[in-house]
């Protein structure tokens, strides 16, 4: 036999549960209404963007195996890493245009991230090396390419090399503090881009202007 006080407690709890459910459903409906009302009254002005800046893209040409500078205007973020990523994504996306001289398949965000890190120019054992590293403006850029970009990239010594050099030279042209570049694919080190161009090495951008066959 169930005691009477337990019956009363069960009824009270049951009624409370029903009441709370009703309140929650009503609150949800009101929140939904507020959201829809907000959508309808939201301003239609364009979001604020960074001003256009002139940048230099070092564009590859498979027919002549050269890089040619191309100046365009782009809105770029202020933060250097985001800036480098935007630059490289813009560079690689233009290779998927119909009349590109260095045709690459279309991929979304071929560069997932660019990390800029200070370069230590002195051996760690040297006195003052920490201070030297901190004061140096030279940076190494770690370019993290996406897996689909590497997988879909045409396979070949020349085409892969031109892609790598184009990235290095474009970074050098727009971010002079970047003197070295290393590559990752999908966040991990990969031996080659697609079977040919070596991605295990550190690439020096400082020598690019003098050593390149870039067309003025």
């Amino acid at each position, binding site marked *: 036999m169930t005691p009477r006080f337990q019956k009363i407690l069960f009824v009270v709890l049951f009624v409370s549960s029903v009441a709370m459910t009703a309140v929650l459903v009503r609150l949800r409906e009101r929140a939904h209404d507020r959201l829809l009302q907000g959508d309808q009254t939201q301003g239609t002005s364009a979001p604020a963007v960074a001003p256009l800046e002139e940048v230099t893209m*070092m564009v590859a*040409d*498979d*027919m*002549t*195996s*050269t*890089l040619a500078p191309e100046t365009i205007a782009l809105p770029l973020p202020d933060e250097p890493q985001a800036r480098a990523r935007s630059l490289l994504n813009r560079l690689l996306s233009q290779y998927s245009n*119909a*009349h*590109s*001289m*260095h*045709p690459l*398949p279309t991929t979304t965000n071929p560069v997932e991230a660019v990390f800029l890190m200070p370069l230590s120019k002195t051996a760690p054992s040297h006195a003052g090396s920490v201070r030297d590293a901190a004061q140096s403006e030279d940076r190494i850029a770690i370019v993290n390419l996406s897996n689909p970009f590497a997988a879909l990239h*045409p*396979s*070949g*010594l*020349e*085409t892969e*090399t*031109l892609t*790598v*050099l*184009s990235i*290095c*030279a474009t970074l*050098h042209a727009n971010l002079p503090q970047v003197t*070295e*570049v290393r590559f990752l694919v999908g966040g991990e080190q990969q031996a080659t881009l*697609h*079977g*040919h*161009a*070596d991605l*295990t*090495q*550190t*690439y*020096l*951008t400082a*020598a*690019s202007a003098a*050593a*390149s*066959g*870039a067309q003025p």
Partner: protein
Amino acid sequence: MAASLSAGCGVGAAAQTAAQTAAPSETLPLRHFTVVLDAAHGGNDPGAWLGAGDSPSPETQSAMAEKAVTLAMSQRLRALLVARGFTVIETRQSDVALDEDARATVANHAQAGACIVLHATEAGSGVHLFVSSLSPAQPQLLLPWKTAQATRVAESLKLGGTLNSALSTAGRDGESSLAIPTTLGRTTLPGIDSMTCPAVAVEVAPLRENAHGGTGKVTSAVDDADYQTRVLNALAAALLAWRSEAAAP
């Protein structure tokens, strides 16, 4: 048409560690002039997929693996060179996998007068020549394995120039329109960087119309027998000239 390839980035010296060592080779007498032919890829590494349009894939019926094309070219070039009195060593004579160190080991043991690494691609047009981007270095008794080529880079550049010249003038009966478009560039090449012979990577691409856009219509595919013959004859002629230069006092 010859053009210089941009060498936009050099290889960081920091990455050039000395894990192994290799002894430099000396210039050899004419009768012992050895050429090493390295057909790139092989085994479970097919390389590029060729001959199936601009987006080849293994699923495409007409696609050919780069490893098969390079092996076929290596065997044809071997025959041409043997007929001209060369001693020829191939890094592989069948569809086997070889890593870059094994290829360099074969080349270094051969003490070759020239090492030719054969590649093939669908991208670009003509023949692309590549020499190691290592900075020249003085010969030493013991060389860092990963940068052994540094002592022979100057000779490799000369060999690249000789190949470039022969390919650029490879038109039949002196017809300039039939010359093979050739580019000469420098890049980091793990296999070649460990070789102690004058070494050049030769990448054969289809011949394309000189149209705007990097995908001009293909006029001669990589597996076109006539085109391959022209390329390989030009390479053989260049190596003959290179041997004569090496033999000159």
